[in-house]
């Protein structure tokens, strides 16, 4: 089978989801680092790979593909031996996961990514912080977390839709939520305080995907330490 190249920055939430999916499913790939903070995604060479100049992107034979959900669906279907729970072949179950993946863009992704960017990350990319935008983003995030809990984590649900095993939707969402690690502890406590089910679900996804989960998130934890100046090993290992 053709070689798979995954263009990623582990600081990017959807990049982490792709890398973890490949490792979980023993899909052989070459990770090509595209360093966002130094603008590598804007290089003309990278534009040949992904004209949207974003990560993640993959090249697999003659196929160049961007958008993490399209990539996850493709990998689940194109590679042998990927267990059905990641992206079920049953049409109704698959459709329910598609709905969650689609909903993500304008809701959880929009809220979480904007909150972290406008509160913490913007200066790394030469932009000013924007507390007003961050406030708006937090409202969207809070509403999104509530919806996830009430619609997709009913009762003692282990994974989204009450599934016994994680799907690509669980992976995508939890990688997104992990970006909130970059916020100060007091902000994280305020955001997650009302959402115990979310915290429990994150632990379930970690347990199902470790040691890959922790390994892929190591860079995020390191960045968190640098930003907040903490030097505690324990803080790095214990998660939110």
């Amino acid at each position, binding site marked *: 089978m053709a070689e798979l190249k995954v263009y990623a920055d582990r600081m990017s939430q959807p990049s982490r989801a792709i890398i973890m999916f490949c490792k979980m499913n023993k899909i052989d790939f070459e990770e090509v680092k595209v360093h966002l903070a130094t603008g590598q995604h804007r290089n003309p060479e990278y534009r040949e790979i992904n004209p949207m100049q974003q990560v993640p992107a993959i090249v697999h034979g003659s196929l160049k*593909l961007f958008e*993490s959900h399209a990539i996850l*669906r493709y990998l689940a279907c194109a590679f042998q031996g990927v267990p059905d729970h990641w992206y079920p072949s049953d049409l109704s179950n698959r*459709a329910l996961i598609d709905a969650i993946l689609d909903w993500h*863009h304008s809701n959880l992704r929009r809220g979480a990514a904007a909150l972290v960017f406008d509160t913490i990350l913007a200066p790394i990319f030469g932009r000013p912080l924007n507390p007003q935008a961050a406030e708006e983003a937090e409202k969207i995030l809070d509403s999104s977390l509530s919806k996830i809990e009430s619609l997709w984590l009913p009762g003692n649900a282990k994974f989204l839709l009450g599934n016994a095993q994680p799907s690509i939707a669980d992976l995508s969402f939890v990688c997104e939520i992990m970006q909130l690690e970059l916020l100060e502890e007091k902000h994280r406590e305020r955001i997650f305080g009302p959402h115990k089910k979310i915290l429990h679900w994150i632990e379930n996804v970690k347990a199902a995907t470790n040691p890959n989960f922790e390994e892929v998130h190591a860079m995020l934890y390191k960045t968190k330490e640098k930003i907040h100046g903490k030097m505690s090993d324990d803080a790095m290992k214990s998660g939110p």
Partner: protein
Amino acid sequence: MMKLKVYTDRMSQPSRAIIIFCKMNRIDFEEVRIDLAKAQQRSPEFQEINPMRQVPAIVDGRFKLFESHAILRYLVCTFPGVPDNWYPADVSNRARIEAILDWHHSNLRRGSASLVFNSVLAPKFGLPLNLEAAKEAEKILDSSISKIEGIWLKGNSKFLLGNFQPSIADLSLVCEIMQLELLDKKDRERILNPHKKILQWIENVKVATNPHFEEVHAVLYKVRAKLHSNPSSISGESIKSGPKVKLSPKL
């Protein structure tokens, strides 16, 4: 077999995509109108259908589904005889269409829907216009339109990705762009006229899906006519059907 129920408002871009798709593919369905201007999406009954309280949504037997792209994928795979061009079985070709569908949410959809809402439609829902938000939205829209042309309509492409027949991505994106019909003619022309490929592509999709395209967009055209012949209707009065009325300047 219970008939497919499709919950829609033809003023909603993704609702129109679902209806056109069903008609094109002779999928038997019952259209249940959810009038957004009357906030019918907030009724407890509709919340049972779609807890997100948005259109479109479908009920197929006991199966409930929302999010228009998920619905389109489901319909393609569930109903027999849908031609392959809508959502190809080939894994790579399908993946390229998925990328467009995913990209849409934060780009074309975000720019276009926000522009139209903040510059025209908001009062219909009891909200104020927001010209600053509209300006930001127009930047996103303009960038999105340029990307569609530059990446997916290269050369003499008839449809996205140079395909000879439309896919669910063509349908979804063109129904979204059609919402710009509600803008002032001069604004619409300013936005779209520099993009000849986009205009040609819209025509290609119309030709491929008529008469359903025009029939499904009739509501939109009617609302456009009322909005632009009767400026005071923008300020929040409910839009009633009837002949065009010229406003007295003293009103």
